[in-house]
């Protein structure tokens, strides 16, 4: 049996131990890194979306340079891949996928959801996006173009969904509360 195919927990223990022994990665650094990654969540993206809905200048900045717009809301982006933001319009609905692996805007949204990384999602998104969206009971009108964005390279993509009707006069916090992870991938749209 190939040494790499040994039990996963044992392999992790061995790799962790060797990396520590060689002064490459320490246990303290691992713990710190986990804490940092855990602090990113869809709530960060929701704050960006809510601000974009209220502030046209921020919206423009988000579409122009997503990383800079994230940093403006104290979402740390240094050393992370550039963030691209795609806006949904009455004419176009965006759907993000990574067919080759699982590239996801982790710095803003946190860990990708299990389904995003699945073979079913990765295969279906680029060939039958409307059938895929039906799994979330999401229907896009026949005259609206679904644009499937395959994250094949250096950018990480998130969707800026449209603000739902009936939210006039809402505060940023109220708006952020209705923006879900799926809305920023494009499998759902926000509703009230």
């Amino acid at each position, binding site marked *: 049996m190939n040494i790499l195919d040994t039990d996963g927990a044992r392999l992790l223990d061995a790799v962790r131990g060797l990396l520590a022994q060689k002064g490459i990665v320490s246990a303290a650094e691992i713990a710190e890194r986990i804490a940092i990654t855990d602090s990113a969540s869809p709530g960060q993206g929701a704050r960006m979306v809510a601000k974009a809905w209220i502030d046209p200048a921020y919206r423009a900045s988000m579409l122009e340079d997503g990383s800079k717009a994230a940093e403006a809301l104290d979402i740390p982006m240094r050393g992370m891949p550039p963030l691209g933001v795609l806006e949904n319009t009455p004419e176009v609905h965006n759907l993000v996928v990574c067919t080759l692996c699982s590239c996801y805007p982790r710095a803003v949204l946190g860990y990708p959801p299990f389904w995003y990384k699945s073979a079913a999602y990765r295969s279906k998104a680029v*060939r039958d996006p409307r059938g895929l969206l039906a799994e979330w009971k999401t229907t896009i009108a026949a005259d609206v173009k679904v*644009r499937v*964005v395959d994250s094949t*390279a250096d950018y990480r993509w998130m969707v800026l969904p449209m603000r739902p009707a009936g939210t006039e006069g809402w505060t940023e916090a109220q708006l952020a509360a209705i923006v879900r992870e799926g809305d920023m991938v494009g499998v759902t749209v926000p509703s009230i």
Partner: protein
Amino acid sequence: MFPAGAAVRVKNDWPEARGPVHIRTPHYVRGQKGTIVRHLGDFPNPEDLAFARPAADCRLYHVAFPMEAVWDGNGAPDELLIELYGHWLEPA
């Protein structure tokens, strides 16, 4: 440098058949015609980074493909938007 709006074709090349590689051009667009949406910037070639080789900066483009062209008639009016490196593209 391809300008926005330029018609391009993805090379119908299969380096996978020649040895161990790391390619970020999905199989389903090889040989397909698309349109340059914009130049996204220049980034080191992942095909070399993957093997810890020195990697030259390559032009990265966002390229749009109509679904119905890629999937033999199915999928209008939807489209695919894919990040592709310049060395995989030629004028169409």
